[in-house]
């Protein structure tokens, strides 16, 4: 198995049906990734989030996906039955969403929810499950004594996202897909969570597909970046080379972020942003 074969996407198109019309939201994109950290960056309507959902088999009417090839660790995802999807999702392919407050069950303690995700995918003795939960919480920087007894509303946004990360990594998946995992957090917490995610993924030799709108931020935490615009991958580059990209859209996305250093200047804008 070559290093590029963790995820292989060929000519993935996603369309949305409204009445008799079919509108293309993702237009025949292709990419491969191995055990590396890849960011998919784009703005609203670029198709980045629906791409993530298509990879997890989570698209529902009126969205529909077609691909020449959609392979994960050598298996053709196009051919999975719903039952097979349930075994792959969560165990080998995991998803972290934007807001932990919506993704966690509000009436179950954190420990119980972690235990549940272990029991669904593996057969382990209770003592072994407790040991793994403690080790996992420790790995994401949370107290294994205190946090299992907390309810989701007692967690801050950053803690909530660490719990989500623990829940997703506890079954040792091969690929973690994170859709704007930190956009509900403030800048400081957001960098901490991305740093943690990036480090854990590297340590466990997994793949990470990070969906984001913030080019500069993901550049610090990923190896490679795909830039999406209006349903296409318009640019790709190593994260370290992003600042030198020649593509006009990438350049504008890179430069349009305000900061104290841009005070008193006119920010560059994307010519066809349509805003």
């Amino acid at each position, binding site marked *: 198995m070559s290093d590029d074969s963790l995820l292989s996407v060929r000519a993935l198109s996603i369309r949305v049906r409204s009445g008799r019309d079919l509108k293309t939201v993702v237009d025949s994109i292709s990419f491969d990734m191995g055990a590396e950290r890849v960011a998919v960056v784009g703005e609203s309507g670029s198709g980045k989030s629906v791409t993530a959902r298509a990879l997890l088999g989570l698209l529902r009417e009126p969205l529909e996906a077609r691909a020449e090839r959609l392979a994960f660790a050598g298996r053709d995802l196009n051919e999975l039955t719903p039952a097979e999807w349930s075994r792959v999702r969560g165990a080998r392919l995991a998803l972290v969403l934007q807001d932990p407050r919506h993704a966690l069950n509000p009436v179950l303690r954190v420990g119980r929810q972690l235990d549940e995700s272990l029991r669904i995918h593996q057969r382990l003795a209770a003592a072994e499950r407790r040991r793994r939960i403690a080790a996992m919480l420790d790995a994401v920087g949370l107290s294994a004594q205190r946090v299992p007894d907390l309810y989701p509303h007692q967690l801050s946004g950053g803690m909530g996202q660490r719990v989500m990360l623990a829940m997703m990594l506890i079954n040792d998946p091969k690929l973690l897909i994170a859709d704007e995992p930190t956009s509900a957090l*403030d800048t400081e917490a957001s960098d901490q969570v991305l740093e943690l995610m990036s480090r854990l993924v590297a340590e466990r030799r997994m793949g990470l597909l990070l969906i984001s709108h913030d080019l500069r931020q993901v550049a610090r935490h990923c190896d490679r970046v795909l830039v999406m615009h209006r349903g296409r991958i318009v640019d790709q580059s190593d994260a370290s080379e992003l600042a030198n990209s020649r593509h006009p859209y990438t350049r*504008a996305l890179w430069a349009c972020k*305000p900061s*104290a250093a*841009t*005070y008193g200047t006119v920010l560059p*804008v994307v010519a066809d942003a349509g*805003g």
Partner: protein
Amino acid sequence: MNVIEVQALSVRLSANGVTQHVLKSLDLEVRAGEIFGLVGRSGCGKSTLLRVLAGVHRQWEGQVRLLDRSVLPRRRFTGALRRDVQMVFQDPYASLHPLHTIERTLREPLAVNGIADSRARLSRALEEVRLAPSLADRYPHELSGGQRQRVAIARALLLNPKLLLLDEPTSALDLSVQAEVLNLLNQVKVSHRMTLVLVSHDRDVIGHLCDRAAVMQSGGIERVLERHEM
């Protein structure tokens, strides 16, 4: 000259029998012609402070002077203050009436204040925020988020305010669209000789736009940052 002078401002909010002290004896001065930022985590009271300054939240104690006029608690703004202080809200989807065309949305503040309006005046207002005058016949759902936020800014500018209050005006927008709106705000500050107060949780936005900023924490101002401290 100070456009805003606030002394010992306190706000208590009660819900389900629990009273929260949202603003605790807060002092604030904002000078004429500056863009002043209010920054802090959610729950620090920055939006409540802005709503007091806009006359939207009227249950408060303390002293508030806006544009050299005293404002009283539990009273609506009267006279010139109703025109001179305008506000732009965070969510451009929620702040425009979904069943009113853009033209009707823009005519309303003029009609309410007894100012003669004309299609030419509305066209100029749209052009100022870089929107095509033909958009006047559209409904909000036919516009993008950035276009809607520019309509909200155009609506506020129509009354030639002296003080423009902005609550997270770009946090619902994409970065590239945010850049356009930030450029627009810098531009109208100069062309209208206004004072702007901007609430944001994003230190980068504050750093880009503001001449000074107050860092807020649990209902008070922790410190005021001068330009070189940002």
